[in-house]
């Protein structure tokens, strides 16, 4: 079975049992149609981070960052149902999907008609093609324009592959932030991460391979621990290795309450605006350079010794907790709540 098929099955089929807060196995309650609880989880707003305009710089690989996705769920204290139900479907989303199908001339195909299966199969096929080493060698040996274009196509394909592989990972990180992630899922996650790493290796994306390997090492370490619930130091390590390490331009990032946006040492946000009551940790660079205030209503703003923040910070009524480390660079206008 192809990896996309596996992911698809994993995300669409309910597991036989769930783990309760005490780590015990408990049967999942059947979904009750029209149940208010079900309805609430289904209509959770999708975007944790809405990227209104994003230009990935100096990279052919799509660089929509993890945090945005993770954090795009605007929520208060997440309920267990929210955590479990990673892929809720709401009537609105179904309508939107139908509209998209219509607009792309695929309106006649219904997802229920096996269309998704076809898409998943197509992804698997494309992924297998991209991963074939002989194909990649042909690309790297040849220097013709045709091959250059092919390589770009393959890179784009890789980005799509990585994007799809990363979905379970993002869900896992979300749970990790909520403090409800168990190590049971690590085995599957690691296989996804390793597949991405393999694909990156065959495309000679050395830096990507290194980071993916580093991340996998952290997951491996977490897997080796006796505790099922991932917390404490391991939790911190995983979250630390999962952060923005790219350049984003002119995007709006919305943080849900209780979420953390970490800009890694190599991360650069230019002309971006971060909105919401989450925690922002900056080890990289944040340049407002556009809409002001660049940071609005954060519960915490932490700037590490390598961090650079240039712009204005609008505090919420409850005021922002600030922390600055020696060595950071700031050109900061702090504004009281309006």
């Amino acid at each position: 079975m192809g990896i996309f098929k596996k992911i698809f099955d994993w995300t669409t089929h309910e597991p036989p049992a769930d783990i309760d807060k005490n780590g015990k196995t408990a049967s999942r309650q059947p979904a009750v149609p029209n149940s208010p609880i079900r309805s609430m989880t289904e209509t959770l707003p999708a975007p944790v981070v809405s990227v209104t305009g994003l230009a990935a710089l100096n990279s052919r690989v799509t660089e929509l960052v993890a945090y945005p996705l993770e954090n795009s769920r605007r929520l208060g204290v997440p309920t267990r149902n929210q955590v479990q139900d990673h892929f809720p479907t709401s009537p609105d989303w179904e309508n939107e999907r139908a509209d998209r199908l219509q607009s792309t001339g695929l309106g006649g195909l219904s997802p229920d008609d096996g269309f998704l299966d076809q898409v998943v199969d197509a992804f698997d096929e494309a992924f297998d093609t991209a991963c074939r080493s002989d194909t990649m060698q042909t690309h790297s040996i040849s220097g013709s324009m045709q091959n250059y274009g092919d390589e770009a196509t393959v890179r784009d394909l890789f980005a799509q592959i990585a994007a799809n592989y990363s979905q379970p990972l993002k869900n896992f990180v979300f749970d990790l932030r909520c403090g409800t992630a168990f190590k049971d899922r690590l085995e599957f996650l690691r296989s996804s991460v390793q597949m991405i790493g393999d694909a990156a290796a065959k495309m000679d994306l050395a830096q990507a391979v290194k980071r993916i390997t580093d991340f996998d090492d952290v997951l491996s370490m977490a897997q080796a621990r006796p505790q099922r619930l991932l917390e404490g130091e391991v939790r911190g390590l995983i979250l630390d290795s999962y952060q923005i390490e790219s350049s984003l331009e002119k995007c709006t990032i919305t943080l849900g309450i209780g979420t953390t946006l970490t800009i890694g040492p190599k991360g650069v946000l230019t002309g971006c605006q971060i909105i919401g009551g989450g925690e922002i940790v900056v080890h990289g660079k944040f340049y407002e350079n556009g809409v002001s205030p660049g940071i609005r209503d954060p519960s915490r703003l932490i700037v590490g010794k390598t961090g650079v923040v240039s712009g204005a910070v609008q505090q919420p009524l409850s005021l922002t907790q600030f922390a600055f480390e020696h060595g950071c660079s700031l050109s900061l206008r702090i504004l009281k709540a309006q």
Partner: protein
Amino acid sequence: MSENSVLNQTVLEEGTEIDGSIRSKCPITVSGKLKGDVCAPSLTITQSGSVCGQVKVSEFKSEGDIAGEIDAESVELSGHVSDQTIIRASSLQVRLAQNGSNGKLHVTFGNCDLKVGELVVKALAKPVKHGSPEAGKKEQFKPEPTVPALEVNAEPQLKL
């Protein structure tokens, strides 16, 4: 800092208020209220202290209220920073509140400006106007080359 200046200190005790400028060669500790300019090797403001004015010191540490303009090499901040305060420093440290602080913030900021780090301060000192002939020559922000390493974190783009 000489040994003599370490031994000698100027202390403004709690309950004492001074309206005027202070220039000193030894460190100053303020537990009372000081309204005026300060020039010294270092200035420490305790929790009960407050300083309002222009401060030029090498080391600045505050746990009380500050207002005005602060120029320092090294700043450690807690307490309260009032409106219209400007802090310029090569290095700034602000700690998060500890767990035992009953939710009280370590530092609260009014409307104020922080300019910390030499690079940022220099860049601000010589702003480059966009469109001017010098705009292309002067140092401008150039995003670092992006490493294609975010694939793991990339947003899914399953197009249906």
